[in-house]
């Protein structure tokens, strides 16, 4: 049961990916999290990096466009690709 919940919460691939070498969430940046209309991004506090927490993407791209370091990339969700 716990295994199944873990998988549904963190699928093996999600539309929004973050290049952790470029992400500056550890410096206090939350731009991508702030601008998402669906509130699906979050900061992993232990690692200081942004990540897609909920797989509910509208592929609208503010997170990618507004990221100050170009760390965020939006793929079209697989179901639509």
């Amino acid at each position, binding site marked *: 049961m716990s295994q199944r919940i873990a998988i549904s919460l963190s699928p093996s691939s999600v539309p929004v990916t973050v290049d952790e070498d470029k992400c500056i969430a550890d410096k206090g940046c939350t731009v991508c999290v*702030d*601008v*998402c*209309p*669906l*509130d699906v991004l979050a900061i992993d506090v232990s690692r200081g990096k942004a990540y897609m*927490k*909920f797989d*509910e*993407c*509208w*592929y*609208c*791209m*503010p997170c990618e*466009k*507004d990221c100050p370091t170009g760390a965020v990339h*939006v*793929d*079209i*969700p697989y*179901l*639509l*690709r």
Partner: protein
Amino acid sequence: MNTIEHEVDVLVIGGGTAGPMAAVKAKQQNPALRVLLLEKANVKRSGAIAMGMDGLNNAIIPGHATPEQYVREITIANDGIVNQKTVMAYAQGSFDMIQELDRWGVKFERDETGDYAVRKVHHMGSYVLPMPEGHDMKKVLYRQLKRARVEVTSRLVATRLLTTDGRIAGATAFDCRTAEFHSVRAKSVVLCTGAAGRLGLPASGYLFGTYENPTNAGDGYSMAYHAGAELSGIECFQINPLIKDYNGPACAYVTGPFGGYTANADGQRFIECDYWSGQMMWEFYQELQGGHGPVFLKLDHLAEETISTIETILHTNERPSRGRFHSGRGTDYRERMVEMHISEIGLCSGHSASGVWVDEHARTTVPGLHAAGDLACVPHNYMLGAFVYGKLAGQSAASFCAEHELAPLDVGQLEAERTRVLAPLLRERGLPPNQVEYKLRRMVNDYLQPPKVTRKMEIGLERFAAIESDLDQLKARDPHELMRAMEVHFIRDCAEMAARASLYRSESRWGLYHARVDYPERNDAEWLVHAQLRKDAQGRMVSFKRAIEPYIVPLSDSERAAYRRLRIPAAQASHAAPSPPSQSSPWSPP
């Protein structure tokens, strides 16, 4: 957990397009007013224009169009069912708003003489003004919110309007990150929560693969209904011609002036005009049913320079991930037509006519409650209509404050709502919101997608009633999932409204938007009226008729039939499906 209490003069719910404008205009009218803009996401990037917009679809610019001409066109495009005074209020405010947006820094396309470069896309008049650099629209609005010193909140999800003795008293909300419950007392409220964009399930099966921003789940339709407001034309669904699977606009409005057009599988035109209307969608549907589909957006005949320009506009505005979708499928505008399809249903007055009933001052039937944007019933109002009605609503709301004190708070109402909202978090176990939403929206497709069949819609109502009882079993594991759970409530209310409103209007009208198989004829004798819907004193959803006000802009017989002649005659195309004979004759004016 305590309830966080707020007290303001004007509460604006929804910070997308109309909302920021309403808040700024209320504050400009009376800077002493406490104006709060409540936003479910973040006003910097929220609502239908989160990534900007590529043009105005309904600009009424002197020298290109007149307000009278526009009112006539929309009356005809909406099959006669309009309160012309509301469309006229938009039309008369249109040019002032364009000039104000221009002063605020929005860049519109101009010709070599410096005049606005207006294009013709509609069937009759010229109203399209491109904004190739329209991606900054939200930044422009944000600057004005700061300048006017409007208080703004983020991540607060409004759940219900508070009323006292039929008058507006405020609203409730919760924080989608902490689940803290908020109550906002206000003298007047402006509802700007956008379309019901998560009603039908996209053919992809993906819950968030919608045309509208999926944050817009029909929140305002549901809240207005429960507050006792009148809704209108809910049966006039929003159904759009979209890029298949991507489900974004193919943007014939952008490509049309460059020579692009909607074509059938043979690459031939079958409609004269790409402006979105129920009649246009009917022809689209007929082309598919007649075996001549799929339908495509055709650009491959255009010059390289033209296609590059189109790509620059379409891939940087409104839905910029279009380019990424096309390259993933190997679709290059130069070589292949873009496959399109018919969308799932939604409610949106910005594109069709379904919305909360408002007068020409953006006032709803609930004293103190105003509405603007995609959820307010001003047919075909689009983005510029959201701005104009946002302005009217903000001004009306400010005026209401001058004459009214805060309504007393109904504590019982507030506590009942708090219990309802927080229940999914407190439940030990229950139904996952995404599964309930998936099933509900699949049922919407199964039973409500036009052509509409009476028996199917009746079964749909039974299914929606069953799902209503399931709502008491929703389980939310965190505040984010609580937001999705409450959205399922909104979507279910919209589904029931869509079914009841469609069953009530026992005729066919607006082409595909309300094509009823059991009543294929248009019946002006009985149905040249607004079909309204509201919650009665016993809490029942009731439908009733509202007479159309006498037209202030008269129409000639020949004009009245204009949108019934969208199909290109067989002599010009290689084939043609017949227009719906039952809906084809012009109606008589009220």
